[in-house]
């Protein structure tokens, strides 16, 4: 059976499974729609949280980032897992005890202020849409490459599936679908990783293979990789290129941002008890760690395989005609490109830029060897320490998807990767869409505009806003704004500098009042947003070059949420000291959420 048919069958089966679950778990009340009736078993909730969290970025992009950044990629590994420690220890149990439906609702009640709630909803909607756009792009890539349909058709299919289970099933439908999606995605991620690990090192566990010797040689994998990349003019794989302060700041921003992301926090509102919220974060991290500890091996092996395949056994390059078939299929999708700088008909890969930026193709025109003609080659200079000029453009996002093909694995493994990538993107998209819809129907409509609406109409508004959000997400996926990749820094920076600090202080500082919280939230928000806009220029032109010399304390826009968070804490503390303490009943409320006893009752009032 050929790859395309096989992929259709596997992806189709996975879709049928998701829809079947959605029909079985239809939501019938707002409680079920927003928080799955607070009856989800902690292990299942952990699995669902894992799928919710592991997006197209984790599944498709992360190992690729690690492959090219080496040690520098560690910020993603530590940042996106360490946040769960903060969640489990500092936020989840208390927010579960508080027992409401949304994050802005907690902020509005704790700070007895509709303004605070509104600022929180705006942050939440912005963060979530940023994220959804990325997921939809992931769905588009997978569809266009593996099912060879155009991106729009792929998006409509993806939107249709999410529509069915998110709009009908609400949180309940999403949770049980995410459990299934987790199983699909983790299977799809680990099977090829194990195959490739055995191929290269003879050790089946990727976590061990990363520290093992390469088969048929006396060298450890990482040493071999260091040697190979240094010979091509790159920095050693285990050294990385980021400065220590920037590594530190990015890791903090990602960790704290993770803990402050509303679609992750809300998962812990779905479990029955406070103690379930604590343990459930542990299960979530367990299921996430299965993928995250595999990713470094995938990255290292993919980099090594890529170099060997492209530069060939003699290390002098491979003629275009002799490249395996995956090369031209990825070239057709525009994520891979070759420009023959030295006119020898061979593809060479080394440090340096092959093109000026992303490839600009001359339509479908072919060059002398059958390659796609590229219009924007670089000058073809040989980078310092490299043996020849780099001629290959590789989009980092293809590393995981192309890895099984590069390693020559059987077709069913490749089809599985496609289903896994779609599962990762759809599960995250659904979780985000639900947070957006709850923000609109529960926080804005029910909480601010029309407090008297019935549960039935609120549920209806929730469904309608989920449907509208899906359409917007689909549009963003079809016409990805140029800044999609850059706004990821935004999402984490905003969550780290605005939401996390005031939620944390709302629990741990009884004296924190509305003035302090609003001042802190706005300071963190404006500073972080301003810094990112200054260097990245989203909507406007960047005002300064995004290079280390210009950065504040040498911290890149990706890590600036760290500084924003500190500013938020300091400003909030100082302002709260010089203004009146919060009312008596708020202080009692804080005392109450610190004690697990009586968690069920908080829902009713």
């Amino acid at each position, binding site marked *: 059976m050929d790859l395309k048919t096989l992929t259709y069958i596997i992806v189709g089966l996975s879709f049928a499974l998701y829809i079947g679950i959605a029909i079985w778990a239809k939501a019938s009340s707002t409680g079920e729609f927003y928080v799955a009736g607070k009856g989800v078993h902690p292990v299942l909730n952990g699995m669902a949280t894992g799928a919710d969290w592991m997006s197209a970025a984790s599944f498709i992009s992360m190992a690729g980032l*690690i492959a090219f950044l080496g*040690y520098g*990629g*560690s910020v993603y*590994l*530590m940042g996106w*897992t*360490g946040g*769960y*420690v903060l969640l*489990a*220890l*500092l936020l989840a*149990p208390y927010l579960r005890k508080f027992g409401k439906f949304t994050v802005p609702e907690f902020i509005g009640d704790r700070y007895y202020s509709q303004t605070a709630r509104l600022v929180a909803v705006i942050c939440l909607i912005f963060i979530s849409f940023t994220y959804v756009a990325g997921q939809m792009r992931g769905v588009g890539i997978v569809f266009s490459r593996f099912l060879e349909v155009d991106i729009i058709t792929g998006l409509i299919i993806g939107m249709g599936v999410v529509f069915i289970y998110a709009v009908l099933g609400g949180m309940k439908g999403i949770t049980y679908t995410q459990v299934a999606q987790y199983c699909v995605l983790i299977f799809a991620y680990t099977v090829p990783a194990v195959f490739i690990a055995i191929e290269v090192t003879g050790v089946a566990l990727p*976590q061990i293979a*990363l*520290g*093992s*010797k390469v088969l048929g040689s006396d060298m*450890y*994998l*990482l*040493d071999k990789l260091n040697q190979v990349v240094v010979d091509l003019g790159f920095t050693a794989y*285990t050294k990385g290129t980021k400065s*220590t302060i920037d*590594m*530190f700041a990015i*890791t903090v921003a990602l960790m704290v941002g993770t803990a402050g992301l509303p679609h992750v926090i809300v998962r812990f509102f779905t479990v029955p*008890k*406070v*103690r379930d919220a*604590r*343990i459930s*974060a*542990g299960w979530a*991290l*367990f299921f996430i*760690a299965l993928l*995250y*500890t595999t990713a*470094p091996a995938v990255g290292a092996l993919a980099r090594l395989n890529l170099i060997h395949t492209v530069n060939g056994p003699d290390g002098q390059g491979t003629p275009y005609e002799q490249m395996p078939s995956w090369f031209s299929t990825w070239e057709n999708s525009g994520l891979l490109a070759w420009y023959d700088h030295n006119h020898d008909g061979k593809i060479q890969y080394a440090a340096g830029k092959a093109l000026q930026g992303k490839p600009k193709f001359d339509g479908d025109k072919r060059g002398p060897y059958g390659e796609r003609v590229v219009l924007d080659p670089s000058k073809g200079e040989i980078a310092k320490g490299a043996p020849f000029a780099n001629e290959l453009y590789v989009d980092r996002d293809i590393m995981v998807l192309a890895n099984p093909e590069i390693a020559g694995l059987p077709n069913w493994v490749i089809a599985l990767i496609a289903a896994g990538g779609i599962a990762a993107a759809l599960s995250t998209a659904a979780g985000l869409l639900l947070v957006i819809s709850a923000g609109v129907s529960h926080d804005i409509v029910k909480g601010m505009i029309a407090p008297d609406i019935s549960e039935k109409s609120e549920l209806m508004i929730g469904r309608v806003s989920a449907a509208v959000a899906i359409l917007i997400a689909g549009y963003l996926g079809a016409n990805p704004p140029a800044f999609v990749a850059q706004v990821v820094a935004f999402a984490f920076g905003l969550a780290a500098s605005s939401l996390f600090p005031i939620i944390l202080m709302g629990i741990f500082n009884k004296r924190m009042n509305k003035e302090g919280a609003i001042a802190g939230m706005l300071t963190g928000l404006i500073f972080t947003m301003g810094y990112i806009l200054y260097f990245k220029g989203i909507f406007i032109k960047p005002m300064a070059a995004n290079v280390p010399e210009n950065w504040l304390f040498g911290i890149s826009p990706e890590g600036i949420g760290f500084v924003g968070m500190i500013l938020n804490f300091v400003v909030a503390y100082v302002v709260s000291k010089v203004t009146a303490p919060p009312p008596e009943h708020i202080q009692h409320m804080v*005392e109450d959420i*610190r*004690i*697990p*006893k*009586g*968690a*069920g009752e908080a829902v009713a009032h």
Partner: protein
Amino acid sequence: MSTQAKQAYWKENLRLLAGCLTVWFVVSYVFGILLVEQLNQIRIAGFGLGFWFAQQGSIYVFLILIFFYAWRMNKLDRKYDVHED
């Protein structure tokens, strides 16, 4: 439950938190970032120790930390009789 008992419960919780967060900080920020070069001098199989903490070890420790905290808090909840049901 008396205010005193509540305060004692909260104090014990904060102490436990401080301990767990110290470990959290040390394995990731200290071992994985600040002292990575020094620790890379220590080799375990194919890994430099600092690199291992940054890409593998810190995640394992995070996992243990969360389960440890959940276990200790359950004990603490019972000790102060603030557990659910």
